[in-house]
């Protein structure tokens, strides 16, 4: 390891070797989970388990998807999708609207509204979990999609992001639109929304993953297995006593649980990286 300038030679291949080792280590748990999802329970309960996929792939995934342990995983996948998309879309819509109002209008109490919204910036649902549960219970929103979605869109991260973005749009653009005869909502729809396309998409990726990966909240408010989301449903598959867990089905479910968000990340890597960098600025 001597120069930045020399790029071939031994050190170059050492670096590659180091990277590949890192990648393999990161991959290993997933590989093992995949193998476990393709073999039979018998292969697993007698350690060491095999390191190469078996022939039970279809059987295990079929069992997981259509019968599961408490509820079919297909149902949980649907619930997760509704929750994740609901959170992403809902949060983007209310954030766009309020960021537009805060940036482009001067209305009474604007500063107050601004601070009220931004107080929520970093407070995760985990912190106010008990009282939030009570509110949702009082509204009769336990075991419902709205109960899964609404408490998680009550934070200002997206609003803050859109506000930052709107501030970078030149004033002249709004002025030109005004001179062109554009009323506020027309400006919002014709100019602001199309210009925010990439930001909206990037945020959607981030929020989708955020929503999909929620654990504690669905754990609390969905007592009906038919309303379980997949991420929290996995834990429910473990037996409470001394019985062996049904590992092949659990691992198949784990893989099913990670496929949608991983797929989104890899497919939209550029947007995702951008969204991540922006949302943490």
């Amino acid at each position, binding site marked *: *390891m001597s120069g*930045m300038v020399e790029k071939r030679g031994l050190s*170059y291949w050492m*670096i*590659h070797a180091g990277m590949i080792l890192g*990648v393999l280590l*990161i991959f290993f*748990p997933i590989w*093992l989970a995949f193998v476990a999802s393709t073999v039979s329970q018998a292969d*697993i*309960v007698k*350690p*060491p*388990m095999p390191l190469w996929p078996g022939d039970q792939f279809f059987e295990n995934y079929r069992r997981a998807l259509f019968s599961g342990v408490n509820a079919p995983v297909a149902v949980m996948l649907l619930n997760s999708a509704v929750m994740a998309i609901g959170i992403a879309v809902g949060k983007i819509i*209310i954030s766009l*609207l*309020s960021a*537009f*109002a*805060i940036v*482009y*209008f*001067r*209305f*009474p109490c*604007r500063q107050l509204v601004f601070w*009220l*919204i931004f107080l929520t910036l970093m*407070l995760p649902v*985990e*912190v*106010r*979990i*008990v*009282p*939030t549960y*009570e*509110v949702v219970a009082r509204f009769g929103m336990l075991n419902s999609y709205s109960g899964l979605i*609404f408490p998680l869109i*009550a934070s200002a991260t997206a609003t803050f992001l859109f506000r930052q973005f709107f*501030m970078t749009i030149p*004033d002249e653009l*709004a*002025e030109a639109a005004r001179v062109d005869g554009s009323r*506020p909502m027309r*400006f919002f729809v014709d100019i602001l929304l199309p210009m925010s396309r990439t930001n909206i998409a990037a945020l959607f990726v981030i929020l989708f*993953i955020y929503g999909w*990966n929620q654990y*504690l909240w669905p754990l609390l408010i969905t007592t009906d297995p038919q309303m379980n989301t997949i*991420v929290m449903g*996995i*834990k429910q598959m473990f037996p409470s006593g001394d019985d062996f867990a049904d590992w092949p089905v*659990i*691992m198949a479910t784990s893989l099913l649980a*990670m496929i949608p*968000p991983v797929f*989104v*990340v890899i497919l939209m890597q550029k947007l995702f990286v951008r969204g991540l*960098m922006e949302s*943490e600025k």
Partner: protein
Amino acid sequence: MDKRVTFRGWLLPAALVLPQLAVTAVFFFYPAGQAVWQSLFIPDPFGLKSQFVGTGNFEFLLNDPFYRASFVTTAVFSSLVTLVSMGVALWLAVLADRLIKSSGTYRTLLIWPYAVAPAVAGVLWLFMFSTRVGLVAWYLGLLGYEWNHVLNGEEAMALVVIASSWGRISYNFLFFLAGLQAIPRSVIEAAAIDGARFWKRFWTIVFPLLSPTTFFLLVVNVVYAFFETFGVIHTITSGGPQQATTILVYKVYADGFVGQDQGSSAAQSVILLVVVGLLTIIQFKYIERKVHY
């Protein structure tokens, strides 16, 4: 910072902020206020009425050895998670940064564990270290090491730390790599011409220039370890053995939902609220500083 141009009227903007305000009021301010309110009371055992105790809940908590232990556990846990995930990520990022052409490929290969839910990561690692079927536990057994995180608190801690750090490595890697790539090549080349060898260059030039990224990740990872690792803990150890892995957030849940001790749980929420508040202030200070650059 304000826009020079604005639209007139107040009815429309009021209507525009209404959805967010309503959701925030109902699902954020009201519950947060409730947490503060409830933290001042102790409900009777039948939940029929409650008695005002002022700061009693807080005093009780701060004198409660379990709660203090949980504080220590949280500190140990979040320091370890931050250290492990940032250390590995920095190491990989430094390597990847030297491979200019293929760093993009490695980024793709390393990025996606971010998308794996902490709870799922917990299940994956639990599977590997399971005392009955775990492959790693089994091989450790062959080597003569009896792995049992169900009974051994330190092993339990190690396992939740690894499982929590695993997915986080991608996130930190991404930011470290971006930070490294933002350092002008000319600065590093100048140092190379000055005769500084790689590690010398790294510690004297690269690492100081990377410090804004490092500081930012430090705060973000602490927040992550504090709040978002609930899923890992819950799936792997459920806070055990003997509360060895009961971090603060887990305790709020355990006391509030499992133990049904509302006053205490609420008081814990309030304490966490303060902790998050402090972290937020630190982060905002950081953002401000970045803006001033």
